[in-house]
């Protein structure tokens, strides 16, 4: 019955174990009369009482310690009281003399033990003695080796044992053992000794310290053999014993088949590293034996797991046979190669030692791993290197075949290099284009590896990789200048099927052209077409437009009309010649743009700005075009399509010319999911959508949010923009103005070389990053410093000279010796 109540308390105790030392609030010591005290005693409950005479100040030190012990004892369900022996009530526990006052431990109203106050010399002693008395059955006090062996024998195949040696009863170590016994006493047999000879007899070293062993008696198969035992190597504290016992409970060896980075066991949570022994089907048995051996050696120091390589999805370096995972979070696992199991054990021990002793230096000594790829393109291309690409869909050219191919057939050539990551990333898009065009295009898709044929690439004026050029008979090659992606390149190829600008022959054809009926299939790639209108006499203007259209081929659909009846079109679309008509067939819209200047450059610019929409959906592809306007973006983040009402509002304001200073646009989070990351940067958690922001990308980087409590009306929007302009609103965030500095340092080979050649005279020269600072400091100083620097320089030269002379004499000396 007693043990069951204790068990209940124990659960509590376990939870409280960790917090025992952190509680600072001092409990008050209840002062009772003997009668009061005995009336509070509950059956089965333990209580410690100190009986003392009133008004006696002599034992104040003990009382202080007793006060401290209240909280820890309470955690074990033991109440503490000070009983004042008043004259009226006499109790047999009230001693006759002041110095004979004692503390008494009761369970219920049964006296268990009486303690002279000098045995309870401090809080540790109080707790240790009290628990020792209460756990009399669970913790066996032994004095001889025979005692130990007899307990061991009774436990074999049944239970494990925790055996500890402490120097004396009532020491902090004793208390720690007792507290552990309180928690684990029903699970394990505890044995305790204060006899140093016993410790010597079982072959311990460093016997001046307290020791704790875990006896693995449950595992014993043959009753004649001793229980295997594990020594706890850390100092005996409550926490350490707790961790140690936890480790003894954990399975000796676990088999896993998942990414070591993701594996977590009790060991990690307790701050111990994990050791994965990599195994494969063929060597499984042997590996398991090794792993078990290692596990025993590392018991209590690290967790040991058997990692099955065959069923693993992540790749592990081929040669590695051990993975070491440190307890610290976010430290990548280490892949190691060991020749024997001993070195695994010593590696773990050494690394643990490191953590304990060099924690402060560690950060300086082991910087980030410079060999970990942090270039997203290089890393993704590298990881994808083994995937088979249908390269056969494109023709691989060589120096021999290049000229013949591009001269005999219309072809597009990708210039790339096998080692160039950006090239290889784009090669994938290029192959995608080839897949999409398979059997559909007369254009030959080809590629040439400039790592092999660099002379060809140089001859073709390819100075940067990757490059795409289109070769057509009778035309000079055209370089592709668009985005390096499937969609854009496909558009370029498709639009290049026709030689732009097309000559429109009649009004009817012009109407068909503007409505999108002509070249219908091309409007899946382009949404806008441009028609230049010229009267027959405007020959130079027309020529310039043709040249502009020609240079836009592959990007813009252009046509030209200059028949006698061109006035019909100019009248219809209210255009003054020369003019451009801009048609968006999908929206059924045609607008006219006057050609103020007919210089090629101006025409190009007019077309480029005419192609921009007034309220576009911003995408990864088109953002740069709108950035060129250098206006702050008035940007709706929308989960799906933009609310038509917002569109209406914006278009109204644009019509009123009220939005000249900003670029209104919207972003569809579904088609441009990176928008979520942007919002996260601005707000933290995702804000309610849609969200209207003004993002000042070009100066200051302020981001303003339209108040969520206002509705988006013309008036509200305008007054908000006004407030922004005069600075009445606070930005929700300001974009980081951080420079793009090197992500990681480089190996400092210069220092390494200096270190290897200690007599090198110039090791005092400031290091790479510091020199600029030094110089700027020096500039502030007077001329003195420069004159002072001079001798050092000359000295250095002299030193070098002397070195050289020495070397030379050495050399000639050697010559003489040889003769």
């Amino acid at each position, binding site marked *: 019955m007693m043990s069951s109540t204790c068990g209940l308390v124990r659960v509590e105790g376990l939870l409280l174990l960790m917090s025992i030392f952190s509680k600072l609030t001092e409990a008050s010591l209840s002062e009772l009369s003997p009668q009061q005290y005995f009336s509070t005693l509950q059956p089965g409950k333990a209580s410690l009482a100190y009986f003392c005479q009133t008004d006696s100040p002599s034992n104040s030190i003990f009382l202080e310690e007793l006060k401290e012990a209240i909280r820890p004892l309470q955690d074990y369900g033991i109440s503490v009281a000070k009983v004042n022996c008043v004259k009226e009530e006499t109790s047999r526990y009230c001693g006759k003399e002041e110095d004979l006052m004692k503390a008494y431990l009761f369970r219920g109203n049964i006296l268990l033990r009486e303690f002279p106050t000098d045995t309870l010399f401090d809080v540790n002693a109080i707790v240790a003695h009290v628990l020792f008395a209460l756990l009399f059955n669970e913790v066996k006090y032994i004095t001889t080796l025979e005692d130990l062996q007899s307990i061991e024998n009774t436990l074999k195949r049944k239970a494990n044992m925790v055996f500890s040696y402490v120097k004396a009863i009532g020491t902090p170590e004793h208390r720690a053992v007792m507290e552990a016994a309180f928690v684990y006493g029903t699970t394990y047999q505890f044995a305790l000794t204060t006899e140093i000879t016993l410790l010597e007899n079982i072959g311990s070293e460093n016997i001046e310290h307290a020791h704790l062993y875990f006896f693995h008696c449950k595992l014993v198969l043959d009753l004649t053999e001793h229980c295997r035992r594990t020594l706890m190597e850390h100092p005996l504290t409550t926490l350490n014993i707790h961790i140690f016992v936890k480790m003894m409970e954990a399975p000796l060896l676990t088999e896993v088949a998942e990414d070591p980075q993701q594996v977590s066991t009790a060991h990690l949570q307790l701050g111990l590293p994990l050791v994965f022994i990599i195994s494969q089907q063929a060597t499984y048995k042997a590996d398991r034996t090794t792993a078990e051996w290692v596990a025993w050696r590392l018991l209590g120091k690290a967790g040991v797991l058997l990692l099955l390589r065959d069923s693993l999805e992540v790749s592990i370096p081929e040669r590695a046979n051990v993975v070491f995972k440190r307890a610290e979070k976010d430290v990548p696992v280490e892949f190691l190669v060991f020749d024997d199991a001993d070195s695994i054990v010593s590696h773990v021990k050494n690394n643990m030692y490191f953590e304990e002793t060099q924690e402060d230096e560690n950060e300086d000594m082991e910087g980030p791993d410079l*060999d970990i790829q942090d270039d*997203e*393109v*290089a890393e*993704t*291309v590298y990881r*994808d290197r083994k995937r088979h690409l249908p390269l056969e869909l494109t023709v691989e050219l060589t120096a021999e075949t290049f000229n013949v191919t591009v001269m005999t057939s219309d072809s597009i050539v990708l210039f790339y290099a*096998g*080692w160039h*990551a*950006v090239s290889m990333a*784009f090669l994938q*898009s290029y192959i995608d284009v080839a897949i999409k065009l398979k059997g559909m295009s007369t254009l030959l898709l080809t590629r040439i590896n400039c790592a*092999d044929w*660099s002379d060809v690439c140089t001859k073709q004026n390819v100075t940067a*990789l990757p490059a795409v050029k289109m070769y057509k008979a009778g035309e000079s090659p055209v370089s592709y*200048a*668009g*985005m*390096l*992606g499937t969609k*854009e390149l496909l558009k370029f190829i498709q639009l290049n099927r026709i030689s732009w600008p097309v000559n429109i022959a009649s009004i009817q054809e012009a109407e068909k052209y503007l409505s999108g009926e002509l070249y219908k299939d091309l409007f899946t790639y382009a949404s806008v077409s441009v028609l230049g209108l010229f009267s027959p006499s405007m020959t130079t203007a027309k020529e310039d437009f043709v040249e502009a259209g020609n240079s836009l081929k592959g990007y813009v659909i252009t046509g030209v009309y200059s028949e006698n009846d061109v006035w019909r079109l100019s009248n219809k679309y209210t255009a003054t010649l020369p003019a451009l008509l801009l048609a968006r067939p999908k929206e059924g819209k045609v607008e006219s743009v006057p050609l103020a200047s007919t210089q090629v450059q101006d025409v190009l610019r007019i077309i480029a700005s005419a192609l921009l929409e007034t309220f576009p959906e911003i995408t*990864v*592809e088109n953002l*740069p075009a709108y*950035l*060129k306007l*250098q*206006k702050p973006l008035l940007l709706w983040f929308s989960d*799906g399509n933009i609310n038509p009402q917002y569109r209406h509002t914006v278009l109204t304001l644009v019509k009123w010319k009220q939005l000249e200073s900003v670029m209104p646009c919207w972003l569809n989070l*579904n088609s441009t*999911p*990176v928008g979520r*990351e942007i919002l996260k*940067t601005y707000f933290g958690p*995702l804000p309610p959508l849609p969200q209207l922001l003004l*993002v*000042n990308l*070009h*100066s*200051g980087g302020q981001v303003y949010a339209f108040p969520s409590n206002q509705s988006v009306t013309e008036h509200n929007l305008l007054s908000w923009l006004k407030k922004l*302009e005069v600075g009445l609103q606070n930005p929700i965030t300001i*974009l980081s*103005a*951080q*420079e*793009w500095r*090197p*992500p990681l340092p*480089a*190996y*400092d080979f*210069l220092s390494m*070389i200096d270190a290897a050649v200690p007599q*090198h005279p110039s090791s005092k*020269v400031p290091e790479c*990053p510091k*020199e600029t600072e030094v110089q700027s400091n020096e500039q502030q100083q007077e001329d003195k410093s420069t004159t002072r620097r001079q001798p050092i320089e000359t000295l250095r*030269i002299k030193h*070098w000279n002397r070195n050289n002379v020495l070397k030379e004499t050495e050399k000639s000396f050697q010559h003489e010796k040889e003769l």
Partner: protein
Amino acid sequence: MGLVAAHRGPAGLLLALALHLALCARPHRDYCVLGAGPAGLQMAAFLQQAGRDYAVFERESAPGSFFTRYPRHRKLISINKRHTGKANPEFNLRHDWNSLLSHDPRLLFRHYSQAYFPDAGDMVRYLRDFAHHLGLHVLYNTNITHVTLDKDPQAWNGHYFILTDQKGQAYQCSILLVATGLSVPKLVDFPGSEHLEGYESVSVDPEDFVGQNVLILGRGNSAFETAENILGVTNFVHMLSRSRVRLSWATHYVGDIRAINNGLLDTYQLKSLDGLLESDLEYLALVKDSKGKFHITLKYFLEENNSSQNADSIPLPQDDNDNFAMRVAYDRVIRCLGWKFDFSIFNQSLRLSSGNEFSKKYPLIKASYESKGSRGLFVLGTASHSVDYRKSAGGFIHGFRYTVRAVHRLLEHRYHGITWPSMEHPITQLTSSIIRRVNEASGLYQMFGVLADIILLKKVSCLYPHWPAKPSSGPRPSLLFLNLEHSCLRNATAFEYLEEFPMQMLAQLETLTGRMAHHGLFVISMEYGRNFSGPEKDVFFYDRSVGHTEDAWRSNFLHPVIYYYRHLPTEQEVRFRAAHWPLPRPAAIHHILEDFLTDWTAPVGHILPLRRFLENCLDTDLRSFYAESCFLFIFTRQKLPPFCQHGYLHMQGLASTESLQQHGVESRLLKSYAAMEDSSQGPGDHPLAPESLTQSLDSNKEEL
């Protein structure tokens, strides 16, 4: 030029006439090349290509006359490697030691010989075709016997070089390019040296050596080649020279003993009768006895005894020292001591002097190959080897074909205002430009430690070039400033790439090339490990190769080294650089880890550390990014990394593909933004598995 000025001058007809006569007497050439050997023809090819006024003077009736006689045993020891497994013609020149540089792929030596060590006759044929196919202007049978200097303030350098041939015909040259090689056999003078046979005339028929005792003086490839030829028929061959034998595979110097010639070393060490001896030839004397056999003795023995004595009574070392090594009598003593430059035709006014003790056989020149004595006189080819004697390949075809090109580029700049050819690139291409060159450039590879590529950093404002000018009409919006390109000026934004510049002339780079180095520079050269090679070093020691990137500076085999300077070093700094450093101390240095395949393209082993080095020198981020990342940076950062500035902002962003995106998420370098909505409630930024990615995409669609 002087002539035109005189015609116009008022001085009159007489002077003009006199000048005219003088001119007729000696035709003028801007460039005169002495010698139609490999170096002379190589220079002629460059001059021809540049359309310069030049002539080559050759005393024989065909090019490459040296090779019609030498090597005596006809086997060239320059490698003719016809297969490398690579198509890159520039790379393949790394292993072609015989071809000259030209644009004609037919003029590659591989078409002239199948042999790995080709016959000298093939070289003669090759040089003849080279001169013929390129139509080089060579004056054959014109033996220049005298060269002198004629001061003239109108001349490019203040003087003309006057060349006189065997017929007394004079030629006037603005620039003199001496490519006469080393043509004079090196002699040795000691009592009895008149009994020596020379390499240039000794019989090459082994039959003539049957059963003879042979002593060879010299320890070069000609000596070993001679020994190799007769090893099998002689009683024994002894070789005697001042210095100990140097093996080229230990020194990396192709002028030392090549393994192909070391048969005698093999038999010596395998206890045959052949052997090597070291002694200074100047202390020796050779005595011919009555039977016509030769005895070695010491010079001072002869001096002590008045030499009028009978040959047989001359004291010999073995008289006192009865185990003297060379006590045996020799049937033949052959001199194979190499060649030296022919100084005899140059007038003193040219001040063309010989080099120091160690390079006496060469004329004294600067690292720019220009004579120290007279401006406008350049030494090319084998005769220019003093620049890198015993270090690199400048004395051999596979080396000097590049130094000749460097000289030509210097001439083009100095006399024609054509700056050293270079390519300008945005800074984003820095890493790949270097990687490309170190993997294919043959000039850097062959002329390691002598020629280096130079990268000159530039700072150009990177305003978006295609952006339309801001509309001038209307009030300027107050929120609007231009800021995105602001960061450009902090760091170098572009660079010029110059190929194969003579490293030792680094301080004079600006004047020699016409390119400016205002914002710092990189120098890219190839080097062997500092303490790796040398005579008597064991180059096969265990652990000789380095495998970890942090140990790259210890690399032993030829590997690229990159020096970074904030300012162009001064002449002082170059001259007083530390011992064993090819250049002054840089601000930072990088070694690209040696590679067994000389393929420096490993993403993590070679490219990544190089990028980190460049980034830290430039204080910038040189990573590449997908368009989506650039898009994110535009909205979340005020500044953009260079890759986004140069690519994405110019509408040339790099799109990702599905599979790459997935790898990016797995590597945690990229995020799966589409999946973010779900994970945004949780604390983690950790990417989700691809399945959940597609799921969330689907659920998004449903919500629409």
